[in-house]
């Protein structure tokens, strides 16, 4: 049976997400409180669109929230998203709820309130911009566990501080672990005596806020 998804709020975000989910054979319902947005959304015939305030229990009932596998809250106010997810969980017993959040400080709070997945739109966006801005220095950057753990992929060139140095000489302390080195398509598990060469790709794991420190130590 096709999985059912309910998306609440979020104009363009809702449209893009819904279209992507439809391609994966989900049944998608959208609730939006603006008439114009509903008109825009209903251009796609496969979408069920409901005009109404998704933080109201009777609107969620009309949208058949109790039959949904996933409820996704995309409104621009944090409190509305919180209420939508809590109502879905506690009143309509939806298994999985997802919410976007603009205030990063509330991430843990949202999880504690029982929301299954919290996406902090602002921090995701700044992460991407930061990644782009640091692109010449870092090839890839991933953060895990509510942005606590950072994984970096760093390409070494001849000009870099760590070029031809042993790992033990890098003074990375216990803050950073070099998990592996990718050298000519081979994966190498390094130890303190491993020497870093040109075109090596270093994969590091550390606290997410150590990125600057890592670049300084490896690249100078």
């Amino acid at each position, binding site marked *: 049976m096709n999985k059912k998804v309910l998306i609440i709020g979020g104009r363009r975000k809702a449209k893009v997400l819904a279209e992507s989910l439809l391609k994966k054979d989900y049944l998608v319902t959208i609730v939006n409180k603006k008439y114009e947005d509903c008109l825009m959304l209903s251009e796609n015939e496969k979408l069920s669109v409901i005009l109404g305030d998704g*933080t*109201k*229990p*009777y609107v969620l009932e009309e949208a058949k929230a109790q039959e949904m596998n996933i409820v996704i809250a995309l409104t621009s*106010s*944090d*409190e*509305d998203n*919180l*209420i939508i997810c*809590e*109502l879905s969980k*506690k*009143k309509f017993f939806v298994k999985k709820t997802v919410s976007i959040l603009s*205030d990063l*400080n*509330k991430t843990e*709070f949202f999880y*504690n*309130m029982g929301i299954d997945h919290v996406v902090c739109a602002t921090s995701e966006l700044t992460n991407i911009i930061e990644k782009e801005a640091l692109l010449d220095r870092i090839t890839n950057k991933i953060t895990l566990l509510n942005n606590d753990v950072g994984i970096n992929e760093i390409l070494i060139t001849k000009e870099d501080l760590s070029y031809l140095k042993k790992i033990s000489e890098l003074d990375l302390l216990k803050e950073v672990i070099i998990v592996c080195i990718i050298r000519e398509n081979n994966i190498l598990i390094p130890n303190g005596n491993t020497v870093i060469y040109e075109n090596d790709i270093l994969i590091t794991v550390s606290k997410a806020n150590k990125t600057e420190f890592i670049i300084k130590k490896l690249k100078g």
Partner: protein
Amino acid sequence: MFKNLTSKKNKITIIGCGRSGTNLAIKLYDSGNDVTVIDKNEKAFKRLTSSFGGITIEGDATNIEVLKYANIDKNSTVVIVTDRDNINIMIAQLIREFFKVTNVIIRLYDNELATICDTLNIKIVCPTILVSQEIEKRFLIGDMYE
């Protein structure tokens, strides 16, 4: 609850300085309590009388920093009466979660939202229900038996 609060000095934070918030703030201050009022609009404090000697804080109470600044601790009583139900619920939950306050009272116009607060031990006052109960009690019950 009111009796309790009038007998000795209590630390009370009121969030939302509309008609209810103002009224309550003045009454509780006059009966000798420590009262702090938070509203995101400074103009709202104009409603408070000149004799009100409690603290007023201009700020958005959905921001944890503002709540910390208001010096809320677990023995405080917090009353949340902004004009939006969803905001009242979120602030109540934030306060329960971050400051472990036991006595949190909120106003909810829509009683159906009460389900969310049940598990968190948040006290709810619903004006819609109070009004209909009062009308029934004062004007209808007698008629029905005539």
